[in-house]
Structures are given as C-alpha cells and as structure tokens.
C-alpha cells in the first residue's frame, strides 16, 4: 500500500475477509498509510483500526481463531480509534439480536443482521434531514445491511435513515451500517480520524 509520507498516520484494516481494499483506497486518498491487521502485533503504533464490510460470521470466526478480540478491546481501551462498517458495525455491538455472532461489545447498541432483507433489497439513498450537517448530502449504500437498535446513553447518532441510526459514535468508536468506503467519499473516514490527520 502506497502514498504515505514519513508522518502519515498509520491506520490498520482487519484483513480476515471483506472489502479491505476499498477502505485502503479511502485511507490513502486521505494521506494515511493503510496496513493489514491479522496479528496482535499489527496493532502496534496504529492511529486507528477499521473493521471492514464483509460477512460478520466469517470475520468473527477469524477474530476468534486469531485471538484478536482481547487485543482489539485493549486497543480501544488505550484510546485507539475504531471504525466498523456494516459487518464491522455488527462486530462492535454489545449484542446481536438474531443469528448471533461473537461481538466485541465496544459500542452500546444492539445489532439486527440482514434487517432489510436479502441482496435484492439492498439500496442507495440519502440520510434523513437533521443529522450531522456536513454529511447531509452523503450517499448511503446499504448492502444486506444491519440495523442498530436500543442505543445506550453514551451513543451519539450522527446520521439516521427512516429514523434508524445509521452512523453512530461513542467517543472514538464509530460504526456505519452503510458503506462509506464504496463511493470514494472520504468524509466519514476524515471525521472519524479527526485530529490524527492534521497532527
């Protein structure tokens, strides 16, 4: 992966399975160094970690086999930024309502998998009015997407669609049920990385 200067922030992407390359493209457009994470040591020195889109059962099996749940939780506890998109959002949740997978429990929401149906029900749209103003015209691409329910008091909802939270944060942990990495629009990644980009 390319396009990194000596001071470029290093951002890891969990590379068990999923659209790792799409996230790497966005990160590189922002001047970050994108690296693949498959081992505990791969988390060293990262400004942030992305849990990409993909299949949440596949990725959760990989996290178990590689014993990465503990190290990822430690990364979060030590102030590391984490962004989960779609499958990644499911993995960050405190629990999954249907078709359970082993969650990391880093975000105080409940995930509902395949909440909109199968692939023929996948769609693209715009967020409800009243969300984060600088993201008001963001294209939201939902692919076999989950819904997030019962957000805890620490959850800030940045964007909604038809009333459902679709972009949320709890401190430095962010989750999107859509795919901000697919349209080449770097605004969500930019906001998530915040001062790590300018510093």
């Amino acid at each position, binding site marked *: 992966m390319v396009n990194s200067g000596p001071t470029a922030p290093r951002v890891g992407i969990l590379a068990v399975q999923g*659209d790792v390359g799409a996230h790497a493209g966005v990160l590189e457009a922002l001047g970050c160094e994108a690296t693949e994470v498959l081992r505990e040591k791969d988390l060293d020195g990262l400004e942030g970690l992305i849990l990409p*889109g*993909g*299949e949440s059962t*596949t990725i959760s099996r990989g996290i178990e086999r590689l014993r990465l749940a503990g190290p990822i939780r430690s990364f979060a506890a030590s102030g590391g930024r984490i962004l989960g998109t779609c499958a990644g959002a499911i993995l960050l949740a405190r629990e999954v309502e249907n078709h359970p997978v082993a969650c990391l429990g880093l975000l105080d929401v409940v995930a509902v998998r395949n909440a909109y149906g199968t692939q023929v029900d*996948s*769609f693209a749209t715009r967020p409800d009015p009243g969300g984060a103003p600088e993201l008001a015209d963001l294209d939201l*691409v939902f*692919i076999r997407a989950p819904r997030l329910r019962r957000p805890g008091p620490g959850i800030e909802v940045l964007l909604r669609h038809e009333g459902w939270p679709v972009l949320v944060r709890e401190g430095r942990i962010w989750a999107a049920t859509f795919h901000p990495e697919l349209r080449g629009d770097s605004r969500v990644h930019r906001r998530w990385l915040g001062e790590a980009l300018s510093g």
Partner: protein
Amino acid sequence: MREQQAGSGSGRTTAEAFEIKVGLAEMLKGGVIMDVTTPEQARIAEDAGAAAVMALERVPADIRREGGVARMASIEVIEAIQRAVSIPVMAKCRIGHVAEARVLEALGVDFIDESEVLTPADDAHHIDKHPFRSPFVCGARNLGEAMRRIGEGAAMIRTKGEAGSGNIVEAVRHLRAVTGEIRSLAASPPEELMARARDLGAPYELVRQVARSGRLPVPNFAAGGIATPADAALCMALGAEAVFVGSGIFKSEDPAARARAVVRATTHWKDPEEVLAASRGLGSAMPGIEMETLAEHERLAKRGW
C-alpha cells in the same frame, strides 16, 4: 414477496443498480463460497467461516458422474438452505435461461450464477443481466469472455476452471489468461484499443476502461477444481480476490475440517506457515481427474462463449 417486479430492476438507476450489485461482490472478497446441497451442509459451511454458500441439488462431481440434464436446483432445496444460514445464498441457473433466473430473483437469492456447470438452455446467448435486481456471477476463461459477461451486466467474474474435476490446472490457466491480457491491455497505446476490442470480442468502452485502470471493473474470483487449502492459496497468489469451492469440500473425507482449512488458507494466502498449519490433518481430498482423460464433450468450461 417484495413489491418490485422480478427482473425489472425498478426503483434504481442503472448505474446505481450496478454499483449495489458489485457492492455485494466487494463484500465477499477474501472469502470462500462453498457449494452445498442440504441445510446441514450449509450450516457446516457457515460454521467454518464461509462467506457465502451456493445452493445446489448436486455438486459438480456428481453432475459429471450421473450425467443427464442439470437444471436449477429445486425450490425446496434453495429455500431450506436460505432458512438454515444468515450468510448470502447463491444459486445457479442455466446459461441463457432467463426464466430460471427470474425464479431465483423472486426467491430473493443473493447472487445468481449463470453457470456452465448446468446444461446450457441457449447455446448462442447469455442472459441480459442488467434488468435484474439480483447480481449475477459468470464464468470466464479469458479476458474477452469476462468482458462480454460484464457487458451483459455480470457483477462478478469467476474463472470457469473445470468444475468437479478436483484439478486446479484449468482455473490457473484461466486466471493467468485474464491477468496476462489485462497487463497487455494496460500497456497498449490508445490507438490500438479498437483492434484489441475486435480481437477480444469485447465492448470497446470496457476495453478502454480496463486499459486505463489495469483491472476488471468487477471482482474476479477463482472457481473450478479447488480441492485443497494450497489450491486456494495458489489462486489468491495469482490474483483471484476470493475462491469458490464446489465438490472440493463435501466430496472430501472430513468436510468440516477441510472447510475451515480452505477459509484459513484463503485469508492467509501470503503466509506459508498458516497455509501449512491449515493443510495438516485433513484426511483425503476429493479424487481428481486428469484433463487428458476428459473427452471434449465432458469439459464443462467449453459451455458458453
């Protein structure tokens, strides 16, 4: 049932519809898609970490052995598998059989494989895939064939390989053909691209796009003959972005262990230690077939054009 009419693609613009279809293919990257014939097999595949399953009535090795006309799987088989798992469920229709494809779309399958493994319904034309809401995957032996299928609306390309053979040689040939032809296109000056489009039998605009970007506009997966973790790692090393395993899992001695092993080798294809660990203790692989022993009419990859 959904309010959209099957095969109509209503409610999406063409470009947006295509993007949404390719989006699911993107999500399957780095994963293993496994052929299954029962809900029990589907659950074994999901538990092992498969990124999707292909619902079939018979795996290719059995289709090859038993002969006869191979058609879309029965509705009951597909529905039982859809109920059994939460990962995407794909299903195959015959080449050119638009009515089978519409049935699969109405069933809400996540991906339709217009597949040479089934007996072709049309020996001259493939399905016009653009009007569908369901994404399609199609097999290809070379870049021209891949581009013709993309031109018709396929959202994912896979090698044809030689399904049900347990022999990786054809998948390797097809992967090398596609990647080699892409490299050659990317090195061609613009004035040569029309002649290349003519020689490839491919749409000119796609030829220009691939020459510019150096890659297909849709994900490129491997299929046909993958039987071991090392086979999967080989395909990834040759540029495949994910792998389909057909008969290789459930025609082996220990399907659950082999399924986990192929998933592991696909994730860690760059790491020989991991592929080694994945290759231990699997029992015997499916029996394989030497290409020379297959008569021309027994070669599934020759179906379609």
